[in-house]
């Protein structure tokens, strides 16, 4: 009898080669381009459109001198921040009764004004609902202050030349480091989560095809079903790592080519555990996360009789995994308490939580414990998936337990 390792290797090798030489792999390789391209384009377009749509507009019902002073003050302020940081200002010729004109402007939907400025720099009035005070109100106050300062300086014939900062560069700043690491931890979780879901779906699709073309019957007669599942998990993981290696290689060459690498290396943001160990841990946690979720996908997804059914069946798993991602998020955000510990210990959230810990803490031993813990759960999930597959798909009841895999591993 072949050992579990040998049998898994035969299955993994076939699946790996078949996938790498298929069109699916090309699509898989190009997936990041599509994903990031579409996400970036949609994000950019959406962000600009959203922010422009959300940017407030204030009507300046004032004499031309006042309106010009306010417009100029706004330009000065936006030059040092961004165009979208301050409300747009639109000068309107004042009517006989500005108070009535202001109310009319606020009621005009086509005009789209959030507030109306009337009066002068020394006696300004801002008409509008109370809820704009925190946003438009404060910003208009800044514009007004700038305009009045400029006016006062001009009247006194005083000019102040801008003074630039003398810069003292440091490697790190604790506050900056913490916020960037927070983002980095969340980013690592989301990347692992997304790639895992993508791969798990791809793998289950492959299993369903084997079920429909009856190959599974041949496999089941030759090798333990555990090895079929492990082989598939390892093959898909191998495919993803190959993809990752290719992309890393391409990006690495691009970095070197554009000489950005030097700048990147000097960026004072590194995971707390250090880049080399972080990269190794990221790969290991990705593998663990994929194996855990993949085993569940295989066990449950294999109940589907065609590819369409997979989408229905995998939906609850995907929802569950989103919940897990949220739980893992507590390991990044929460300072302590029950939830982060639950996230570290719950098998499905453990890899995502621990990668966040690697970014934020320099302790190595928790990772060794976590990886052993996750490996144990991979074995349990694979075994459970096999039992489920045997009983429901192969219609084989009888003697099934969690132990045979351990026995065959010893063999």
């Amino acid at each position, binding site marked *: 009898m072949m050992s579990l390792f040998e049998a898994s290797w*035969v299955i993994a090798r*076939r699946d790996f080669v078949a996938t790498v030489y298929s069109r699916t792999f090309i699509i898989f390789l190009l997936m990041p381009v599509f994903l990031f391209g579409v996400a970036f384009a949609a994000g950019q377009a959406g962000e600009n459109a959203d922010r422009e749509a959300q940017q407030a507009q204030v009507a300046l019902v004032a004499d031309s001198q006042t309106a010009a002073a306010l417009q100029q003050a706004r330009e000065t302020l936006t030059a040092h921040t961004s165009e979208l940081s301050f409300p747009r200002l639109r000068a309107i010729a004042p009517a006989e009764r500005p108070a009535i004109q202001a109310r009319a402007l606020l009621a005009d939907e086509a005009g789209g004004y959030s507030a109306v400025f009337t009066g002068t720099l020394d006696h300004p009035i801002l008409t509008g609902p109370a809820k704009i005070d925190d946003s438009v109100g404060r910003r208009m106050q800044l514009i007004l202050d700038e305009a009045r300062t400029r006016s006062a300086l001009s009247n006194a014939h005083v000019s102040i030349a801008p003074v630039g900062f003398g810069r003292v560069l440091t490697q790190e700043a604790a506050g900056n480091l913490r916020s960037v690491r927070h983002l980095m931890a969340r980013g690592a979780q989301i990347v692992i989560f997304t790639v895992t879901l993508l791969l798990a779906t791809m793998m289950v699709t492959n299993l369903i095809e084997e079920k429909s073309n*009856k190959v599974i019957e*041949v496999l089941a007669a030759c090798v333990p079903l555990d090895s079929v599942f492990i082989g598939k998990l390892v093959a898909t993981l191998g495919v993803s790592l190959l993809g990752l290696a290719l992309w890393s290689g391409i990006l690495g060459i691009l970095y070197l080519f554009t000489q950005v690498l030097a700048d990147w290396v000097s960026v004072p943001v590194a995971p707390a555990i250090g880049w080399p160990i972080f990269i190794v841990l990221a790969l290991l946690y990705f593998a663990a996360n994929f194996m855990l979720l993949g085993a569940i996908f295989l066990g449950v997804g294999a109940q589907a009789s065609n590819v369409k059914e997979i989408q229905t069946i995998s939906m609850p798993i995907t929802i569950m995994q989103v919940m897990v991602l949220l739980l893992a998020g507590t390991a990044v955000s929460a300072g302590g308490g029950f939830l982060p510990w639950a996230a570290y210990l719950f098998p499905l959230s453990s890899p995502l939580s621990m990668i966040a810990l690697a970014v934020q803490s320099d302790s190595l031993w928790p990772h060794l414990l976590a990886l052993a813990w996750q490996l144990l759960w991979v074995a349990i999930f694979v075994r459970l998936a096999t039992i489920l597959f045997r009983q429901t798909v*192969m219609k*084989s*009841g009888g003697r099934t337990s969690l132990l045979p895999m351990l026995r065959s591993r010893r063999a």
Partner: protein
Amino acid sequence: MQGHLAIEAHGLVKSFDGKDAVRGIDLAVPEGSIYGILGPNGAGKTTILRMLLGIIEPDSGRRALLGHERPLEAAKIVGYLPEERGLYPAMTTREAIAFMGALRGLPLEVGRKRGEILLRENGLGDYVDKPIKTLSKGMAQTIQLFGTIVHKPKLVVLDEPFSGLDAINQGRLEHLIRDEAAAGTTIIFSTHVIHHAERLCERIAIIAAGQIRFEGLVAEARDRLRPQVRLKTRNSDGPWREALPAAARRDGDFWQFESPRSGIEPLLKALIDGGAGIEELSIERPGLHDAFVAIAGEAAAREMEKPSQTELEVAA
């Protein structure tokens, strides 16, 4: 005893969703024999084979495959062709054969070489690098059969191996089965086509409704019936009619009955003396089909004539 048996099963029971599929099967397949499991569709043949191979677990009973009570422990020396053929459509024929060998522990390189030899020896040399999806169903089945034997197993289990094959390929398969058996391999196959079993098998098990109705040599099954006498006479009536056995029945111009236990000579004498005017007389040893009818019943025999799902698919 176990050392001489390729397969040994005692009291195998299996039910699906509360419905009994196999009810207490005992089997003893001698090493080096060609053994047939005969039965109509739905008799439980495939379930028995799947239990023997460990693809499914029996609800009760035990089995040993080449001396191993856990069938997968014998996987390296067993070959299995399932009824529903399974191959990866994108794989080439040589790779498919080699992969099936690898599943049984044969190194891929050796599998590729043997696969190519099998293909060339059987006139399929042009298809060595062709993907499975480009082959006809019968040809794909042949490839899977090569994959079943590429690792030179001691036991080959074939589930309805003739289904979906045309007459020429059926003949080739029979030839291949004989060759394997001649090399010392034990062959066990299920079929619902009696004449394949009759031509190939030394021993058979006749299954109906999940139970074995007969187990033993083909000759023993046939010997359960007395030789059949077919008689045609010039005279339709006369004293000779009294010499005919009571169970004699008309079949067109012929009388048909079992050869009397007292022997054929006294009967012949009585027919001649009674003025029958014998035109034709034949004494035929009963075929396996007749034995099957006698053992499993007319209904089961009629079921045997019906094509399997695979055959229906091929016909479609």
